[in-house]
């Protein structure tokens, strides 16, 4: 007891500072070790591999921009870029429109609301590969249930070749992607909608606003920050999508549905051209950065709307 005051006071401030940083560092260590080892290092290695001619089982040597020069002249690569942009663009717009619509519906007073909310999120919970298998069967060239139903109604004469025709295949994979993406958008936007006070809507309606005006001038501006974030995530994950395409078409027919991620896999792993595959993956990064910047500005607007608080 008596030694306590004599030992401590000297370095208490230094100790505090020291221990704060030391504890922080110690607590960060496991997560940081993992992320550096399996995230930062591979990211750097991926960029490096893009500049080499590495193959499976053989370390590459530095070849500069040769992979990129090769890809620049490769029509398949440009097809995949085009496909990725179209796939992301169309699917994101549809997911946003339908998701917002569903969120607005679920925001109404409904019986069994939580039950509906639980059902709606289901496609998102189930492994993509497994639900994509169900879509594969639904899109079967001969025994598609959609073709059969349409034939029963009498709209078409023969079964639709969903995945065999380039245009149909593109529409089909986008439809499957939208199906899987709607729940995420809808439930996230619903959470945003629930934070908008009803009194604002009531005030607007007392001022004589129509329901469209209430939506456009009250709901949408208040929802816009969360829309920005949700759509950034959605765009990011659609852009780098792999599973759905790999199950449904593997990039076919004639590369009509190859995305950059599936092309990167095909060239890199079964094709063995690690360098080239990595270069395709690296080529996705600028697009992803654009999406992240978009999210950043979305978040900034949110700060401003809340009155500049951090």
């Amino acid at each position, binding site marked *: 007891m008596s030694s306590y005051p004599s030992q401590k006071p000297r370095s208490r401030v230094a100790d505090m500072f020291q221990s704060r940083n030391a504890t922080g560092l110690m607590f960060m260590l496991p*997560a940081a070790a993992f992320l550096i080892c399996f995230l930062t290092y591979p990211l750097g290695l991926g960029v490096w591999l893009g500049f080499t001619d590495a193959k499976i089982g053989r370390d590459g040597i530095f070849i500069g921009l040769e992979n990129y020069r090769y890809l620049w002249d490769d029509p398949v690569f440009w097809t995949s870029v085009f496909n990725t942009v179209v796939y992301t663009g169309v699917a994101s717009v549809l997911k946003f429109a339908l998701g917002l619509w569903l969120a607005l519906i679920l925001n109404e007073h409904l019986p069994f609301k939580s039950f509906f909310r639980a059902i709606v999120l*289901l496609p998102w919970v189930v*492994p993509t*590969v497994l639900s994509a298998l169900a879509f594969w069967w639904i899109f079967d060239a001969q025994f598609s249930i959609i073709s059969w139903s349409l034939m029963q109604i009498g709209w078409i004469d023969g079964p639709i070749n969903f995945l065999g025709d380039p245009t149909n295949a593109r529409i089909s994979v986008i439809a499957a992607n939208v199906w899987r993406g*709607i729940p995420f958008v809808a439930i996230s936007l619903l959470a945003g909608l629930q934070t908008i006070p009803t009194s604002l*809507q009531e005030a607007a309606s007392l001022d004589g606003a129509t329901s469209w005006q209430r939506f456009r001038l009250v709901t949408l501006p208040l929802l816009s920050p969360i829309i920005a974030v949700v759509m950034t995530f959605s765009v990011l994950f659609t852009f*780098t999508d792999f599973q759905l395409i790999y199950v449904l078409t593997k990039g076919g027919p004639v590369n009509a549905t190859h995305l950059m*991620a599936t092309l990167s896999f095909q060239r890199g*792993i079964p094709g063995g051209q690690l360098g080239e595959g990595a270069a395709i993956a690296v080529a996705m990064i600028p697009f*992803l950065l654009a999406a992240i910047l978009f999210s950043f500005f979305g978040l900034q607007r949110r700060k401003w709307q809340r009155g500049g608080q951090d």
Partner: protein
Amino acid sequence: MALTTQNDPALKDDAEGMSYLNRLPRRLVTIYLPLAVFVFVLIFPFYWMAITAVKPNHQLTNYDEYSPFWVVAPTLDHIKYLLFETSYPGWLWNTMLVAVGSTVLSLAASVFAAYAIERVRFTGSRPAGLMIFLAYLIPPSILFIPLAVIVFQFGIYDTKLALIFTYPTFLIPFCTWLLMGYFRSIPFELEESALVDGASRWQILIKVILPLAVPGLISAGIFAFTLSWNEFIYALTFIQSSENKTIPVGVLTELVRGDVFEWGSLMAGALFGSLPVVILYSFFVDSYVSSMTGAVKE
């Protein structure tokens, strides 16, 4: 017309206040009908999966004599085939093992990281938080090729360890981000009084913060479990041998062969592979929703 109804004395300042604008026939068209269509479209693939899994083969492709939407004399043959003549039970076990392993690992690492960033406030904790968020935005599809090289260098290629060690790359950022939000909501005063009582940081974390953050831990845990259960591209790239495959990879690479598709057993495989996460989900719907929206909100 709207003006006259606004004089309604029943109008109260509560959530139901504006329901006067929506009479039943209108609600039917603007709300219930679209909702029914949405629910039908979102649910139909699962129904189709389930009905195919129990359909005898001769009914599967004969739409003229049997209605495709229903099944006469359901069979368990596809499921029996799946469970006893394929490696399916092994894949199920692998997936479970990998998902539990990577979830536990990620949660443990994330609890410390989130606490350090949010409460220890060491020098550079804010940039660290930002880095965690950015790490969450790096998708697996740009990492799998270099990671394959690394996994090979570490000598864990084609083992379950490869997956247990690589899944945390997307689980740790997510869990940390989510737990940071939970820790932020725990009042400082509790920690301060513990500090005054002479508790160390370690004791505060274990005895004060963690018990209060149990809902957050559950949310992060089941969400991470689902993400690892559903993961595909790493498992496809890092695993070669049949006995180490996970459900999504196993079903796709081993049950799909040649041109004769065993749709019945394929759909049974898809159904049973989805069931564990769906059951988990049905018990923790609110945790799922809060972790999904939590990741988006902040």
